[in-house]
C-alpha cells in the first residue's frame, strides 16, 4: 500500500523538483539493549520505536520487529520476568506533547510473537521489583531520574503478572522517599511467598524509606497499608527485610528489618486487625528490637530443635550470632575469618540431611561452613573452611552443592558437599556472573575475551570454543538451548552456539541484524 502511495505521489512531482525530501537514515542509531529472555535477545530501537527480537534457532535465526500499539509512544525500559519466559516493557509518551498517551506496561511473549497483556500503570516508573514467585511486579520510582516535570515519588503500581490487573496506589507513609522494594518472604526463588496473618493469606511487599517502612499486602487490595516509623533520630534506615512465617513457638509471622547503621534488628510481628472504619480484614505490626550488635551485614532465620533463631553475620566481629527470637537470648560462633554474607544449604550426612550455614566475604580467601544440627547445644562447634587461594572477587550460587568463585584469572568451582575446590585458570579474568548452569554443564563467557567455555561439573573437565570476536555480553537462553555472546558492534553482531556442546562447527555468527529490513 505504501509503495502504491509512493508511486502515486511520485507521479505528481515532475522530476522530483517538487518532491519533499525526508531523510530517513540521517540520525544516529539509538538502540539500547540487549535484554535476554529464555528464548530471545531483545533490543529497543528508539529511533523507530520498535522492539527487536533476535530469536536463535538451530541453524538460523529470526529477527522480529514489533512496534508498540499506540502512536506517539516510546519504550521507557524493558526487563524480563523472573523466569525469563516473558518480557515486560514500559511504554510512555514519546514527548510531553503526546498527552493522549498514558503509561502502559506490556507483558510480551519471550520471542515477541503473540499478543501482549497491557497494564495501565499511570506513571513513568523507573524501577521494577519482581516477587520471588514471579507472580507480581512492583513498579516504583527508584531515583530522581525521570522526565516527568512533577511526579509523586511514593506512587507505585502493583501488577499481577499472572493476570491483567494493575493496582496503582500512593504509599501511606511518613514522608520518606522510597529507596527500595523488597519481598521479604524470599526463601526460595520461584516459590510462592504468602504468609498467614490471622487466618488470611497475605503476600507482603515492603517499601523501604529513610527511617520508615511501608508494608502492603499484594493479594488483598482492601487491606490497609501498614507504615512503621523507626524513631526520629534517623539512625535506623532499613536496608534488608526478612519474613518468617508463624510457627516454631511463635504465633505470628515476624518481619525482620535490618539497618546498616544500627546495632539492633527490628522485629515486626504481623497481627490481624480489621479496618477501624470499614471493618475489612487488615493487619498491623507490633515492633520489637533484637539486639545483635553493630556490624551486622546479613541475616536469615532458621529453626533448630524447635528454637526459632535469627542468624546474623557480623563482619566486625567475624562471628555468626544466633538469637532466639522469643527470648532474645543469643550465642555466637566464630567464623574464624571475614564474613559478610550468609546462606543456607542442605548437607548430606549419611542418611541424614542437615542444614548448613555458609558464610563468605569479598576479598577473603575462605568459605566457611557450619553445620546447624543441634547448634544450640553443641558447645565449641567450629566452622569448616574451604580455601580459595586467590581470594574471592565474587561468588555465585549455582545449586545446593556448588558455588562459583571468581578470583582474577582463576575461576574456582567449589563443591561444598565434597569440600572440593577446583581452580580453572585462564588468561583473562573470569566473571562468574557471566555464567549459567545447564544441568551439569557450567557455561562461561566472560566479557573481554573470545572464549566460550564449558565445564562438566561431574568430571570438571573444561572445554573451550574460540569465537571470532571478543565477548561483550554473555547470555544463556534456556528455552532455546543456546548460549549467545554479543560483540561490540552497533548494528548487531553476535555468535550463537549450542549450550550443551558449543563448537565452531555448529555455531553461527549473525551480523547486521539490527539493521535487517530497514530499507523495506
Amino acid at each position: 500500500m505504501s509503495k502504491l502511495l509512493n508511486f502515486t505521489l511520485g507521479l505528481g512531482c515532475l522530476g522530483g523538483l517538487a518532491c519533499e525530501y525526508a531523510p530517513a537514515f540521517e540520525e544516529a542509531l539509538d538502540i539500547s539493549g540487549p535484554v535476554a529472555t529464555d528464548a530471545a535477545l531483545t533490543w529497543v530501537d528508539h529511533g523507530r520505536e520498535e522492539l527487536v527480537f533476535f530469536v536463535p534457532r538451530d541453524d538460523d535465526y529470526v529477527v522480529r520487529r514489533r512496534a508498540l500499539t499506540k502512536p506517539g509512544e516510546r519504550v521507557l525500559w524493558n526487563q524480563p520476568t523472573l523466569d525469563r519466559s516473558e518480557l515486560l516493557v514500559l511504554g510512555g509518551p514519546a514527548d510531553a506533547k503526546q498527552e493522549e498517551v498514558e503509561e502502559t506496561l506490556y507483558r510480551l511473549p519471550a520471542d515477541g510473537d503473540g499478543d501482549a497483556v497491557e497494564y495501565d500503570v499511570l506513571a513513568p516508573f523507573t524501577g521494577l521489583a519482581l516477587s520471588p514467585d514471579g507472580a507480581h511486579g512492583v513498579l516504583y520510582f527508584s531515583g530522581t531520574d525521570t522526565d516527568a516535570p512533577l511526579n509523586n515519588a511514593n506512587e507505585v503500581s502493583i501488577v499481577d503478572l499472572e493476570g491483567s490487573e494493575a493496582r496503582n496506589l500512593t504509599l501511606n507513609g511518613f514522608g520518606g522517599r522510597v529507596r527500595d522494594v523488597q519481598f521479604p518472604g524470599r526463601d526460595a526463588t520461584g516459590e510462592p511467598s504468602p504468609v498467614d496473618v490471622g487466618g488470611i493469606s497475605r503476600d507482603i511487599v515492603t517499601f523501604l524509606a529513610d527511617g520508615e517502612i511501608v508494608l502492603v499486602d499484594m493479594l488483598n487490595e482492601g487491606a490497609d497499608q501498614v507504615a512503621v516509623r523507626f524513631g526520629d533520630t534517623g539512625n535506623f534506615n532499613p536496608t534488608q527485610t526478612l519474613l518468617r512465617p508463624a510457627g516454631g513457638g511463635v504465633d505470628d509471622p515476624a518481619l525482620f528489618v535490618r539497618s546498616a547503621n544500627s546495632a539492633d534488628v527490628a522485629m515486626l510481628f504481623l497481627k490481624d486487625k480489621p479496618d477501624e472504619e470499614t471493618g475489612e480484614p487488615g493487619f498491623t505490626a507490633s515492633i520489637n528490637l533484637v539486639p545483635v550488635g553493630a556490624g551486622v551485614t546479613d541475616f536469615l532465620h532458621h529453626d533448630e530443635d524447635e528454637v526459632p533463631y535469627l542468624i546474623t553475620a557480623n563482619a566486625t566481629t567475624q562471628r555468626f550470632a544466633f538469637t532466639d527470637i522469643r527470648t532474645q537470648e543469643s550465642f555466637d560462633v566464630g567464623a574464624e575469618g571475614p564474613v559478610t554474607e550468609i546462606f543456607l544449604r542442605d548437607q548430606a550426612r549419611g542418611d541424614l540431611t542437615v542444614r548448613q550455614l555458609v558464610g563468605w566475604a569479598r576479598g577473603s580467601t575462605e568459605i566457611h561452613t557450619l553445620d546447624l544440627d543441634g547448634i544450640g547445644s553443641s558447645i565449641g562447634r567450629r566452622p569448616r573452611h574451604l580455601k580459595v587461594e586467590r581470594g574471592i572477587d565474587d561468588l555465585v550460587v549455582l545449586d545446593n552443592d556448588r558455588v562459583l568463585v571468581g578470583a582474577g584469572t582463576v575461576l574456582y568451582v567449589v563443591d561444598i558437599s565434597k569440600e572440593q575446590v577446583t581452580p580453572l585458570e585462564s588468561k583473562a579474568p573470569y566473571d562468574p556472573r557471566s555464567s549459567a548452569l545447564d544441568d551439569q554443564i557450567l557455561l562461561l563467557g566472560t566479557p573481554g575475551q573470545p572464549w566460550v567455555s564449558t565445564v562438566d561439573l561431574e568430571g570438571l573437565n573444561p572445554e573451550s570454543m574460540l569465537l571470532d570476536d571478543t565477548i561483550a555480553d554473555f547470555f544463556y537462553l534456556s528455552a532455546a538451548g543456546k548460549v549467545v555472546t554479543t560483540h561490540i558492534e552497533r548494528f548487531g553482531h553476535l555468535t550463537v552456539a549450542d549450550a550443551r556442546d558449543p563448537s565452531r562447527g555448529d555455531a553461527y555468527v549473525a551480523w547486521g541484524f539490527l539493521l535487517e529490513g530497514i530499507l523495506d
Partner: protein
Amino acid sequence: MYALTLNSALALALLGPAASDASAPASDATTKARLDEIFGEDAKSPAPDEGAAPAPAPASAPAPAPAPASAPASEPGAEVPASAEAPAPGAEAAPEALPSLGPSAFDEVSAEEASPPEEEASDAAPEAAVETEAAPKLPPSPVWPDIPVRWRVEFMIGAGTSSFYGRDYTFFDDDDRRMVNPVVELRADAKLAGPFYLGGGFGYRFGESSASPFGDGQSSLKLHEPRGFMRFSYEPVQGVDVYGDLALGLAVVDYVVELDTRSEERRYAFVGDALVGTALSLPKRWLPRRGSSRTTVGLDFGIGYSYRSPVEIQPSFELDDEPISTDFSSFGKLSLHGLTWRLGVFVRFM
C-alpha cells in the same frame, strides 16, 4: 562537377523566363566577373559551331528555351546527371519540351537568380549581347537537390536526473531523492511512411550518489546501465521530432556500505524505461548543403518513467581464515524507480 555546373547553367538559361519570376538581371557585371573567376574561358558562351545558341539568345528569345526532353533532372529528387552528353538545347525543341518540365531538379533559388524576367530579357537583349561579349558569363550557384531522408543515425550525449520514490534510496543519498544521470546513446531509425519513423538503439546511463547514514556511516551507490531501446518518432516538420522510447537493459548496481566494517557489493537488476520527448534539429534548409545535407545537430529532451527491479542490499565483508559460519543480514530491498528526464545534444547522420 564542371560538366554538371555547365549543363545546369545552360539549362537554367533556357528555362529562365518560364521557371522564374526573379528580377535579377542576367547581365550583372559582378556575377560575370565571378563567373569568369570561377570558370575562366570555359564559362563563356559556347562557340556557334557547337550548335548551341549564342549566349544572348536565351535572353532575346521570344519563348522560353526548351529543356532537354529527356533530362533526368526533371524527376523530383533525382540528381542532375553529370553528363556532357545531355542533348544540347535547340530552339526548335523548345515549344514541345517546355510543358513537359516537371518540378525543377535544380535548386529553385539558383534558377531564379540565373533567369531574368522575360520582359527585361527582351529589352536588354542588345545590351546584354554586348556585355556578354565583354564580360564573363554568369556562373550558376551550387545547387543541392532535396534528398529525401530515408534513415537517420544519431549519437547523443546528455544528462538528466532520476527521482526515486520511497525511503530506501535515501540510505545512499543524503541530499535528496534525485540522482544525476549522464547518458550516451547511439540510435537509428528509418522512415515508415509519411513523417513516421521507427528504430532503436543502444545507450549507457550512469548514476552515482553517496550518504552518511546514521551520522558516522558511509554509503555510496553507482549505477551502470547499458540499455537497448525502440523508438517511434513523428516528424511533423523537418527538424522537429516527437518520439516515444521503450528501453530495456541491465542495471549494474555497485554499492559500498561502511558501518564499523566496510563492505563492497555488486548486484544486477533489469531496468526498463518509457520515455516521451522531442528532438529538435537544424532543418536541412538551414544547413550549408541545404536539401542535400546529410548531417545535422540538435537537442533532445525526454521525460518518462524508469523502473529497476529491486536489488537486495546485504553488506558483507571478508572474514578471517576458517571463520564461524556467518550470516550477513539483509538490509532490505533497494527499489529504484521513478520519474526520469534527460537533456542531450546529438548529431544526426541522414
